[in-house]
């Protein structure tokens, strides 16, 4: 027998001390009240008769002491957490990975969910294991992972924290070593499993119809018109009649029932009437749908706001035309020679020009010369370099949201050295040459270190989006960020996050950004002072195929038997001590031990 909590010497000392204490207490028990009687003659005769009737009755006097001693020693031994291999078997270790992909939330025929079945299966595995067996439980969302432990309470607590989420599942980064690995999954997620992993499958065929894609786009050739592109996929083994519903700020814009074949997709482009703003929501409804979270998707159209723009240029027809076409822009074209800096506009666009003093309004600069307010760019002589393309860019920056820089051709750019810090950032570069630099200090500025003539940026579809993004970023109203459900990172420091309906959500601040959990499709608003960010969160494409099994496994896994006891030995010792306490109580009240 070995002891997990104490050394054998400590156990021996503890037992000796316990025995001494019990014996002392037993013999120092409370003195009985004294009663004076005429004579003990008859009492002695009676008690002698009772006590000497048999050997058992003589021993009975010691029963109370023996019981007390046994109880105390059992408790002392339990504290030492003994382990007897002959009884509890060799302790084993296993890593249990629960698949927390969103398909695990699919409802099963018994009105539970695959997740419920997975939890029950894991609970069975742990309950069937020996008391000294240790487990590490982890999920595939990377949120929960315990240490290797035999503490069932810790394991239960970890399991309670797990739940299916829209995060893309990955096998957790835990030290598997040579341990047994059990993956409890519906087999939908593609996981990079260790070779020795065994899969416990909770898969059950289910019906599911989902919004596969949902997007509100500007109608081609009609900047003020919007179309909705909606794809509905049927993952069920049978064709389904699906009711489509499109709502614009609560008003039904479109409703239709379509039949979607088994494992087929139906796409619709729906023209939105008028000038829709706010939350655009798509819903699909069908009978027997097993997964609800993918039945809805949202998008957001920011309400338009007029903005006065001063374009300071010696002549750039492309920029003039682009800005003039934007209904929201009230454009003023100013020659650099006539620039005063006090034009009544909300922002400036400088084309190959930069004033010596930073204007009071935000500024977008195309290939600016070196200026001190442009973060020390005047300390280095401007260089002309020949470029072939953008090598890196920050897609998460608001001005590059949905702006593709792939294959962007730049023939010439000015190499300016910028002193970057927390507010001044290079968001796109070609090698060591900064191409787009932003400063979030008020007033903000964006420097594009090449002209539109020296690149094909202006003829790319992403350029109007870039201009929209820049104007929105300057106005403090970023375009809605499109994110997947799960943990969302918003580039606003110390922001508070609410749902679009104004319900506060818990948020975790990070350096320069804020994290929050988007658990359901919808629009979330992050606010930090005057700045706001809108986040449209939808289920990522491809996560809702509840029948797309990639992993197969057994429906039942049994923990190897060979143990007499399913829990640690100390629990049984404590149980036995409790039983003896009950026995002592019973014998006392029956006057057997007194």
């Amino acid at each position, binding site marked *: 027998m070995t002891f997990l909590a104490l050394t054998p010497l400590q156990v021996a000392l503890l037992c000796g001390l316990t025995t001494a204490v019990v014996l002392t207490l037993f013999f120092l028990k409370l003195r009985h009240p004294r009663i*004076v*009687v005429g*004579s*003990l003659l*008859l009492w002695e005769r009676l008690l002698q008769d009772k006590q000497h009737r048999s050997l058992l009755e003589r021993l009975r006097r010691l029963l109370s002491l023996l019981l007390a001693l046994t109880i105390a020693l059992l408790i002392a031994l339990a504290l030492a957490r003994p382990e007897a291999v002959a009884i509890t078997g060799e302790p084993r270790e296993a890593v249990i990975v629960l698949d927390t992909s969103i398909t695990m939330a699919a409802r099963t025929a018994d009105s539970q969910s695959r997740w419920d079945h997975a939890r029950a299966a894991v609970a069975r595995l742990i309950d069937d294991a020996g008391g000294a067996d240790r487990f590490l439980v982890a999920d595939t969302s990377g949120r929960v992972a315990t240490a290797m432990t035999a503490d069932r309470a810790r394991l239960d607590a970890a399991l309670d924290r797990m739940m299916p989420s829209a995060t893309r599942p990955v096998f957790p980064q835990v030290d598997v070593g040579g341990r047994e690995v059990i993956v409890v999954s519906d087999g939908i997620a593609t996981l990079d499993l260790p070779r020795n992993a065994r899969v416990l499958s909770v898969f059950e065929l289910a019906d599911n119809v989902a919004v596969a894609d949902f997007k509100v786009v500007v109608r081609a050739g009609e900047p003020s018109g919007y179309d909705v592109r909606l794809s509905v996929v049927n993952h069920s083994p049978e064709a389904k009649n699906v009711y489509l519903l499109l709502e614009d700020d609560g008003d039904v814009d479109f409703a239709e029932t379509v039949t979607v074949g088994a494992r087929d997709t139906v796409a619709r482009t729906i023209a939105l009437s008028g000038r829709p703003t706010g939350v655009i929501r798509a819903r699909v409804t069908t009978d027997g749908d097993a997964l609800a979270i993918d039945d809805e998707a949202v998008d957001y159209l920011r309400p338009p706001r007029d903005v006065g723009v001063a374009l300071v240029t010696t002549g750039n027809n492309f920029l003039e035309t682009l800005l003039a076409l934007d209904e929201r822009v009230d454009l003023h074209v100013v020659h650099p020679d006539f620039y005063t800096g006090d034009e009544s506009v909300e922002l400036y666009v400088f084309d190959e020009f930069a004033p010596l003093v930073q204007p009071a309004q935000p500024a977008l600069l195309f290939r600016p010369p070196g200026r001190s307010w442009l973060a020390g760019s005047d300390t280095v002589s401007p260089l002309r370099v020949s470029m072939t393309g953008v090598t890196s860019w920050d897609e998460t920056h608001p001005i590059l949201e949905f702006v593709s820089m792939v294959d962007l051709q730049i023939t010439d750019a000015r190499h300016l050295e910028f002193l970057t810090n927390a507010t001044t950032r290079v968001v796109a570069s070609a090698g060591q040459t900064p191409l787009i630099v932003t400063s979030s200090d008020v007033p903000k500025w964006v420097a594009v270190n090449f002209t539109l003539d020296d690149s094909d940026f202006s003829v790319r579809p992403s350029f109007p989006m870039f201009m929209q993004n820049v104007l929105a970023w300057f106005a403090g109203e970023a375009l809605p960020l499109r994110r997947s459900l799960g943990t969302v990172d918003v580039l606003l420091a110390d922001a508070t996050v609410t749902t679009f309906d104004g319900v506060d959500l818990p948020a975790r601040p990070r350096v320069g950004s804020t994290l929050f959990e988007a658990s359901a499709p919808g629009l979330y608003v992050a606010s930090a002072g005057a700045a706001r960010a809108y986040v449209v969160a939808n289920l990522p494409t491809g996560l809702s195929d509840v029948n797309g099994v990639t992993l197969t496994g057994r429906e039942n896994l049994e923990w190897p038997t060979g143990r007499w006891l399913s829990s640690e030995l100390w629990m049984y010792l404590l149980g036995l001590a409790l039983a003896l306490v009950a026995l002592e109580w019973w014998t006392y009240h029956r006057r057997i031990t007194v």
Partner: protein
Amino acid sequence: MVTEDTLFDGAFLKKLEYLHIVSKRAFAGQFRAERRARTRGSGLEFADHRAYAPGDDFRRVDWRAYQRLEKLLLRLFEEEQDLPIYLFIDASRSMADGRPTKLAYACQVAAALCYIGLAHLDRVTLAPYTDHLGRELASQRGKGQIFKVFRFLGQLAAGGTTNAKEAFEKFCRSKRPRGIAVVISDFLDPHGFEAGLNLLRFSHHDIFALHIVSRTDAEPALRGELQLVDTETGSMHNITATPSLLSAYQKVYAEFCNEIERFCARYQLGYVRTQTEMPFEDVILQVFRQNRFLT
């Protein structure tokens, strides 16, 4: 303090005067009294005739018989003598138990018996005892001595251990005239009640055992974990008083009483058991008469 006032009222005393202590045997007394003796003497009650012999008191010649029979016959009368009555009162500490105490009750009964004896000119001796014979109140005769008896009884206090054998040995060695020996005790004698009674029996006394029982002896009101202390010896014993144990004790006590009763019946000793809760008048007037100790 036992006094006449506290013990007896006038009516009760009147009743006592009509009572006699009954002896199963006739004993030789010293003085003339109201009891017939074996000897013929100068009593009032005619017993028999016998032939005159020279030297006889011719005043007792029955002249009427001489007229009829022409024989000198002498009239014989039964001699009436006093009876020695020894009242042994157990004054050990165990007699201080009960309400009233067994000793007080014993004193009351003893006083009543004394009065009866004195009223009939018997010689009454009071002999308290513990593990030895205490100071006696030597033979008293006549009702006038009753106050001395009361004073004596009033000064009795419980104390010491019980050893009747030791006490009665001393009594028997002192060559007392044989008479009625009344032993008033709870008989809780660690050395056994038999030895003491046997000593008196072997000394040819007419023995009467009056067993005083208190409720605390017979039905102790105990409950729970207790340490019992013997009031005489100071020895202790731990018990857990449960209904079953108390029931067992009551059986043992009843068996103890039966033992005494059987012993007395076996050797034709008078035996009366009385509880301290019983009015002692009832004991005198009813129980003793039923047991033919008094007539």
